[in-house]
């Protein structure tokens, strides 16, 4: 193997078809509005691809969540995995059980009727 040869292993090239499209115009507005900067052209294209996927995802969320408004947000250039890694941070919440860390159970119930 020649160490000088760097192989493309991601699918960046698959997003080139988005260049010059209506989606890219949206993406440019997004980049301008949120002051986004990408170090290389390849990264720009990659983020454009994720942005396009997130537009589809926002439409899906809108269908599933009709009383809210879903669309372009500051996180529209992040994959779901990147978003979770960068902006979410509760660990150990998968069981649904309340972790008490030494305190005795749960607060007493209060009167809530009337």
């Amino acid at each position, binding site marked *: 193997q020649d160490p000088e040869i760097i192989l493309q292993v991601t699918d960046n090239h698959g997003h080139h078809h988005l260049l010059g499209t209506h989606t890219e115009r949206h993406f440019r507005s997004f980049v301008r509005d949120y002051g986004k900067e990408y170090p290389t052209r390849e990264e720009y294209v990659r983020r454009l691809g994720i942005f396009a996927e997130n537009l589809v*995802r926002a439409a899906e969320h809108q269908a599933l969540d009709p009383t*809210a408004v879903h669309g372009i947000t500051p996180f529209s250039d992040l994959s779901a995995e990147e978003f979770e890694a960068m902006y979410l*941070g*509760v*660990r150990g919440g998968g069981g649904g059980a309340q*972790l008490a*860390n030494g305190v005795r159970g749960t*607060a007493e119930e*209060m009167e809530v009727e009337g």
Partner: protein
Amino acid sequence: LPESFDWREKGAVTEVKIQGTCGSCWAFSTTGTIEGANYIATGKLLNLSEQQLVDCDHTCDAKDKTACNNGCSGGLMTNAYKYLIDAGGIEEEDSYPYTGKRGDCKFNPEKAAVKVVNFTNVPIDEKQIAAHLVHHGPLAVGLNAVFMQTYIGGVSCPLICGKRWVNHGVLLVGYGSKGFSILRLGNQPYWIIKNSWGQRWGEHGYYHLCRGRGMCGMNTMVSAVMTQTS
């Protein structure tokens, strides 16, 4: 219980903060509930330090030893309360400012502005959550944030949202009885939730989530603190 309630109107909530690209939501949720409890106890709203928790808190849950606080890699609010009780308090934001990166612990007990003496989980019944909110101040909450990446506004009430995959820490500050629905599919009661992604996200930094259905697991990880007044 009042039909609607909002701790922001009563001055118990600091401005919306920005956690940056750091999984420290648990720290913001923790400081939010302590800021509220301290306000109710003293009448003073202090802006407390998340960075102290990010840098210094490595507490693990007493039962689940794998659930440990780990700076920008995540944590739990109940672990943070335990740390603060043991450490002797929490500094103000000005004395221990947020950087969004984990660094060496620089906590100085002499600069502690608020001391935590106890904490508790809150029952999962949403009327109970409302009662504890009204009586004890803003509550730390964990929820499934899957719909929050694309949320812009309105009342979020997804048809499907996993209740068991709680992955984000936020602050419950109030509730409303009739949420605005842009598609006019009906008004509905909702929770007012403070987030830590800045004011340019959501409803000026807040998330409105429908109330009464345990939506996105918001009722499964609710906690409150008691602070010490000198």
